[in-house]
């Protein structure tokens, strides 16, 4: 868990101490990752003047003379770098519930443990049997098709045992996390 803000380190240091946080606040100076996540907007002139009148000057806090800000956002990213949950709101007074994020994290952790268990089973049985059993179990649990976009499906859907153990582990992780996350995220 990390929190990104365009604020300078002298302010994040004070905030971190004040709130006694157990996770890091990272300074996204000049909004580089915020731009990559496409969250950045420019404050309109009238709001800029208003904030200045409150003493909230972004040049001081952010070294940001262009008065850009990120929309508030919360992302959950799995170990394959895929975004599993995203909450972005242009209205900064609305924030996602932490309990929802924690629920998804638990799901992803369970998926990771399942993946390790399956990788162990794979060593004892034939790869194909384990894969097919896993796919059947997944399909029984969820009627969805697997949103997997990689070159492996043709390989494992038929009795082709040429996948390596590392590929298998990667694949199991994707199947399980995609399926569970899809189930979790759908209302």
């Amino acid at each position, binding site marked *: *868990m*990390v*929190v*990104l*803000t*365009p604020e300078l380190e002298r302010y*994040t*240091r*004070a*905030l*971190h101490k004040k709130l006694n946080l157990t996770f890091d*606040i*990272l*300074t*996204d*100076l000049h909004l*580089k*990752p*915020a731009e*990559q*996540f*496409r969250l950045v*907007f420019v404050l309109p002139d*009238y*709001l800029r003047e*208003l904030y200045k009148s409150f*003493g*909230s000057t972004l040049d001081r*806090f*952010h070294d940001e003379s262009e008065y850009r*800000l*990120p*929309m*508030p*956002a*919360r*992302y*959950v*990213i*799995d*170990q394959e*770098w*895929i*975004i599993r*949950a*995203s909450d972005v709101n*242009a*209205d*900064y*007074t*609305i*924030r996602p*519930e*932490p309990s929802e*994020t924690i629920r998804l*994290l638990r799901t992803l952790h369970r998926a*990771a443990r399942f993946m390790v268990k399956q990788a162990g089973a794979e060593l004892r049985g034939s790869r194909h049997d384990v894969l097919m059993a896993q796919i059947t179990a997944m399909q029984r649990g969820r009627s969805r098709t697997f*949103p997997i976009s990689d070159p492996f499906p043709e390989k494992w859907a038929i009795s082709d045992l040429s996948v390596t153990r590392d590929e298998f582990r990667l694949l199991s992780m994707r199947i399980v996390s995609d399926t569970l*996350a899809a189930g979790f*995220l759908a209302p």
Partner: protein
Amino acid sequence: MSNLQDRLDEFKRTFESGAPPYHAPREAIEMMHRATAELKASGIEDHALKVGDRAPSFTLFNQDHVAVASADLLREGPLVVSFFRGHW
């Protein structure tokens, strides 16, 4: 403990009532509402990265000036990345 949004709504009600300690003027609140409505109408939310997209990597300094890389955090498990504007 009540949920986060309830507490935020409570704060917003107090702030927008113009009561102490904030004494927010009516015109200021209207400007804030206008800016939020305009931003929402711009469609910017639809362009943000979303579920299924690949997350960009980053390395940034934490509050103690230690460089933190998302790649290192992801090796330990799934990662929550939260963006906020600042303490002000």
